[in-house]
């Protein structure tokens, strides 16, 4: 007979072991899924985990995919720490892409070195502005930020669609829903020759460091953590609840906006209506699996990027839909939430005296 017994205090060890346990369980479940579909599990997992990493190009693609995840998750984690549930990073990502594209199209053929910084600013501001809507409605009208930020994802998608089908459509683009290709001055430089890995990765790493300093070395970050872990203490200490909400959402929106900028100025080189592969939603999982900590987010975004690339691999070599990656992502979060029970409880064998 197994039962759960509360621990006297939360286990720090399990806090970090739980994501590993979840990753292992996801692999086991993934193998079973492949077997269920009549495919060789070993081959499936090899395609998912090993094949993408076999050469420099594979590694560069992994980092390329991890870049938007890292950026979005870093911003989200700041809000999640304070129990601000911004789940609209996907929409803020799209607005960031729109803001950056606006600057790039306005600059046109300009060779100025100011184009990229302008796009970065435009992306961050547009993402933050999109996140400011749920922040304002939450602080002013008490409206639930989960539902508002999520509804704005659909609105953002329609906005992008309107732009690329309408005013921003490339007149020479054979009616495809896309803008013109950006000029060279509006493209992020490539970091490693022969790959698509671009400067955006450094934005993401800088964001991780900045988030660490903010969360653990600044008073504002301390206030956010208190608001999340002990709301009553935060209230008693006189920390402003609306400032926490604004900080959480604006950080999330700005970081997702930068991710959107890096996507259009990086691998895409233009704005299209197939902008995002669900990075904003996957980033929610990355933030949780990374324990809302910058280092954890770095590792979790690599794992998640691997799932994305693995999905493309099995589509190509095993003829399975690449949405299998979404299934794996969902499983990963399920297993994490399940494994997290061991942070607060331990497993005991036999029936204890205190069984109710």
């Amino acid at each position: 007979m197994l039962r759960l017994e509360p621990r006297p205090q939360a286990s720090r060890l399990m806090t970090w072991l739980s994501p590993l346990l979840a990753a292992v369980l996801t692999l086991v479940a993934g193998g079973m899924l492949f077997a269920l579909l009549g495919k060789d599990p070993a081959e499936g997992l090899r395609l998912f985990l090993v094949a993408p990493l076999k050469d420099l190009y594979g590694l560069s693609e992994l980092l390329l995919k991890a870049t938007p995840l890292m950026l979005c998750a870093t911003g989200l984690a700041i809000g999640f720490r304070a129990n601000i549930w911004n789940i609209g990073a996907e929409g803020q990502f799209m607005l960031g892409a729109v803001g950056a594209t606006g600057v790039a199209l306005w600059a046109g053929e300009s060779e100025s070195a100011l184009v990229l910084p302008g796009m970065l600013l435009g992306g961050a501001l547009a993402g933050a502005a999109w996140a400011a809507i749920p922040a304002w409605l939450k602080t002013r009208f008490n409206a639930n930020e989960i539902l508002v930020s999520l509804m704005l994802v659909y609105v953002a998608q329609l906005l992008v669609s309107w732009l690329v089908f309408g005013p921003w459509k490339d007149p020479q683009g054979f009616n495809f829903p896309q803008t013109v290709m950006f000029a060279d001055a509006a493209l992020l430089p490539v970091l490693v020759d022969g790959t698509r890995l671009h400067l955006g990765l450094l934005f993401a790493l800088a964001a991780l460091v900045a988030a660490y300093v903010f969360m653990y070395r600044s008073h504002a970050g301390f206030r956010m953590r208190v608001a999340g872990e002990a709301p009553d203490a935060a209230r008693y200490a006189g920390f402003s609840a609306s400032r926490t909400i604004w900080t959480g959402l604006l950080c999330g929106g700005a970081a997702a906006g930068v991710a959107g900028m890096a996507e259009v100025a990086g691998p895409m080189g233009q704005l299209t209506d197939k902008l995002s592969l669900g990075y904003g939603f996957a980033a929610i999982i990355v933030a949780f699996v990374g324990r809302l900590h910058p280092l954890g987010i770095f590792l979790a975004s690599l794992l998640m990027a691997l799932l994305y690339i693995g999905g493309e691999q099995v589509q190509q070599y095993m003829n399975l839909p690449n949405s299998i990656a979404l299934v794996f992502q969902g499983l990963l979060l399920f297993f994490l939430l399940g494994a997290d029970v061991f942070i607060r409880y331990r497993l005991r064998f036999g029936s204890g005296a205190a069984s109710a």
Partner: protein
Amino acid sequence: MEGNLFTAVLFATVVAGTPLILTALGLLVSERAGVLNLGAEGMMAVGAVAAFAATHHSGSPWLGVLAGLVAGAAMALVFGFLAITLQANQVASGLALAIFGVGLAAFIGKPYESLALPAVPPIRLPFIADIPLLGEALYNQQALVYGSWALFWAVLWFLYRSRAGLVLRAVGESPAAAHAIGHPVLRIRYLAVAFGGAMAGVGGAFLSVFYTPMWVEGMVAGRGWIALALVVFATWRPLRVMLGAYLFGGVMVSQLFVQGAGLQIDFPSQLLSSLPYLATIVVLVAISRNPATIRLNSPLSLGKPYRPDA
């Protein structure tokens, strides 16, 4: 002519509101038991694809509805295991279910993407369908539309007139008190969550088998989230869920009629399509503006895990 337009708009509004009613009433019951399941979008998506596949292979739309119901309930039980048994954070568990469900539906549905189902003929109710203007719109409808009305009466009766409904509400308001007088809090919450999932699955089945008889990835299009917002908007009361669902149905179909009416205005269709989402935000703001409205009406233990022996 104008009478025909009125009937057509009313007909389309009722159809568009039906999946919202089915899903939101199910969510309402589970929230009344104190469990907030944000995974509605995922449960609807899996319900829709399961219903489509079952109908495609069996030829019977009713087996399809059954498959949607079972699939939705199964999804909800996964959530229930995390949120009720393991006492995981309900918001995070619900998000996980939403992401997982949408992904799973896309994965399962891939082979069905290019297929279509035969349209299911509506059922014409005798005599009352002949009422001018209203009859054709209300009483010559899909069986599940009548089903959604039956569900409304059933939920109303269950919550306010039955002993079991009283116990369920007690569990939602004060699980500790309900436990103390001997009610199985966790089992009741499981049943409520499974019911919510089953109804979301039927809502999804209505989309893929009756409303637009096909499966397309992303066809649920946020209806699960809108249904969640509807429950808040309705301050957890069934009648207001009905009114809200038809209000949203009206907003959803208005764009089609504006576009179809050939009005000579240059208005981007994407802007019209975003109206239901913007309307959701507006009603949430309207209902939440007074914090007391939410505080006084939401089930007291909503979103809080309960551990009987603690």
